[in-house]
């Protein structure tokens, strides 16, 4: 990586930035899920590792969250953008060198930021935990270079129109700039009180709604048609998805604070807009499912499609929960319980992770021109992710319902803790399975880069999956 930082732009092979982002994202995924598994162990067994602030739950919880969001998810997105955007524009990446620097600064900045967070140096705002100078770094050296590369590649494209995936990529990198700036205004300008509380959740909501969800969906719009050979079922439904994300997903931030003293009109408005999240969700899922028509055997045969379509199908329970759990009728019961934790993992570990994994699997093979080292290990990874995630999701959903019941009947809190204990153990088992699967993935990808069978010119990796 370092040798290309000061190389001439033309000397850097195409796809270098994407490969670096891809490998980095897998390493961060291993780190992030490892931390998650450790945290879960501490919730199940509080005296597991004790007596040091660096192994205290309160110091590690946010490091897990930020490592996964900024390391795994966002770097996998950057990886996808670095190879999909030029591929769909029938061109090369605008600046491979900027991409390499972007990846380098991203890794350096994120390592520093997570060390600070681990030491407890935090802004005390959930999801925008980084202190403000890190927020500025994230915007200046992570968000802007990435967006610039995507935008310039789209502008310099050699196709007439822009394909669905690239609208989402270009739209999302622009929206995430706004979210990163506006969401951190309380830290930059010392905004206080309810303004701070509301902007914290405005950030948290929109970083999911305008960054993670649309970019993950955009990956599916690329990989499914690319691998199955079916054209996207409907460009227009894609339009509906895009515009309804911008209009409906950007507005319900207040539903995260339904039981706080925010203006009532705002909470009602957010709740209604929150149900309308079903519009982009249904548009997305139905479009992809219809694109698969006649090619469902790929869901079984092809590991990338298996990942993609699992992600797409998990968007159904995700949005059914997401659309309705924030209405007043339901929110009062499950607010602040493990249900929400389960839902957040459904969004990030279920829906989006499976889509990102498909982009990284497919992209690394395509760019490195090397076939996957082991299909068996890839399937092992898939099943460990899926079973581990489901174990986590189901156990936390049950724990959440117990907490909800305990909350409304106002039983002594310690009884809730006791009742949740078995589910905390299940959560730890599930999280550890995910971590194990990711370690296998890292090994598999490393071996792919070193020893994977070379893919001949003109062939695609998935065509050769079962050839020796």
């Amino acid at each position, binding site marked *: 990586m370092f040798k290309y930082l000061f190389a001439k732009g033309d000397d850097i092979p195409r796809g270098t930035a994407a490969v670096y982002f891809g490998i980095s994202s897998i390493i961060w995924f291993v780190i992030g899920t490892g931390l998650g598994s450790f945290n879960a162990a501490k919730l199940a067994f509080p005296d597991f590792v004790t*007596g040091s602030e660096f192994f205290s739950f*309160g110091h590690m919880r946010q490091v897990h969250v930020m490592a996964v969001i900024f390391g795994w998810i966002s770097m996998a997105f950057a990886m996808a953008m670095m190879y999909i955007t030029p591929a769909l524009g029938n061109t090369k990446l605008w600046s491979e060198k900027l991409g390499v620097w972007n990846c380098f600064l991203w890794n350096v900045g994120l390592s520093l930021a997570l060390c600070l967070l681990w030491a407890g140096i935090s802004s005390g705002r959930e999801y925008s935990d980084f202190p403000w100078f890190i927020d500025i770094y994230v915007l200046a050296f992570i968000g802007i270079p990435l967006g610039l590369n995507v935008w310039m590649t789209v502008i310099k494209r050699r196709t007439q129109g822009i394909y669905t995936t690239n609208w989402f990529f270009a739209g999302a990198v622009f929206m995430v700039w706004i979210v990163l700036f506006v969401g951190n205004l309380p830290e930059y300008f010392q905004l206080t009180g309810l*303004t701070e509380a509301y902007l914290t959740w405005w950030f948290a909501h929109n970083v999911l709604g305008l960054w993670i969800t649309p970019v993950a969906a955009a990956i599916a719009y690329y990989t499914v048609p690319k691998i199955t050979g079916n054209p996207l079922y409907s460009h227009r439904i894609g339009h509906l998805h895009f515009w309804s994300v911008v209009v409906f997903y950007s507005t319900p931030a207040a539903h995260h604070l339904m039981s706080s003293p925010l*203006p009532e009109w705002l909470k009602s408005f957010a709740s209604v807009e929150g149900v309308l999240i079903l519009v982009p969700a249904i548009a997305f899922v139905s479009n992809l499912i219809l694109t698969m028509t006649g090619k469902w055997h790929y869901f079984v045969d092809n590991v990338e499609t298996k990942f993609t379509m699992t992600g797409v199908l998990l968007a159904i329970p995700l949005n059914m929960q997401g659309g309705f759990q924030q209405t007043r009728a339901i929110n009062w019961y499950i607010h602040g319980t*493990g249900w*929400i934790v389960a839902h957040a993992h459904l969004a990030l570990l279920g829906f989006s992770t499976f889509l990102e994994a498909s982009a990284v699997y497919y992209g690394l093979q395509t760019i490195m021109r090397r076939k996957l080292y082991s299909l068996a290990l890839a399937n092992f990874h898939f099943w460990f992710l899926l079973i581990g995630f489901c174990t986590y999701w189901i156990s936390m959903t049950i724990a959440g319902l117990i907490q909800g019941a305990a909350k409304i009947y*106002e039983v002594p809190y310690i009884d809730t803790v006791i009742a949740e204990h078995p589910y905390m153990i299940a959560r730890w088992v599930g999280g550890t399975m995910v971590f194990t699967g990711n370690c296998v993935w890292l090994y598999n990808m490393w071996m792919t880069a070193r020893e994977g069978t070379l893919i001949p010119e003109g062939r695609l990796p998935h065509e050769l999956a079962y050839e020796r």
Partner: protein
Amino acid sequence: MAFREYKIGARMFGLALGGSMMITLYMPSLDIVKVGSTEYGVRKSLSFGRVGGFSLEDPFLRGWSKPKTVLLKKDPRTGAAMDPTYAYVYEPGVRFTSSIPHPRILGVGVKDLSLEKGHINEAREAEGAVFLVQEGRYEGKKYPYIENATATRNWTPDVVLSSVKDSDIQKIGSGKIMFVREGCWWCHTLLPEETQDWQVFGAPPALGDFNSETPTAFGSDRKAPDLLHIGSRNSSREWMMMHFFNPRLVQPHSIMPRFDYLWGEKDASGNRIDYDKWRADYNAYTAGERVYPPDVPVPAQDSDARMLIDFILSLK
């Protein structure tokens, strides 16, 4: 090739996103700025200081540059007895909570009284200041307001601090830093919900309870009891001390981490704390080899544990 420029799309996009931000950011802000601070909110923000998380005056979250909350039972100048009153003491150089330099945050009435009767605009960070919370009338309505006692009564920070015992000084602002740094808020919310929670966790906060406070640290994932009114439910410093040192001492089923490391090297009497011995004794106790658990050391005056306990007990 004729490229599409997406002119209409780009404008539509600006309109959609701009409209969304207009409704969800600008319009609520109009409502939120109108909210006047409650007395509870005024007291809370004065005791917390400027920032409860990372700031340049406290970059390592050690509780630096935070005010002290002092319980006064006599006038610090004259020594005359007075009703117990909380004074918020900002020693020289300590950053004021935002509502002092920007009184607009306090809202109508509170702001006007604080400026006219409280003289908060005369407070200077370099010299320090002592603030009191009073009640007054503005345009026929009652409001709380902040009195700058340094200007109105010539109570300087050292005079006030030297007039009281250490047990009457609470490091609530530094304790909030500990609360944020140690991640207490990942499990303990500070937000009883409006729909239930009244009976056990107490009343939900009001609109004006947060003016000039940042971060609000409501918490979102409640794995442990809400703490907004914990000081009213349990005001025992000894219980808190044991619970922070090892929660299993007072609640065998607790999943809270041990915060014994907040005690630091030495206890209140200056003796070195032997953590290894303590843990060995505790393990012997849990194994049934000892009848009683080992004693929990009393935290030193300047320990993180003391600050955190001060903060927790202040949540009434």
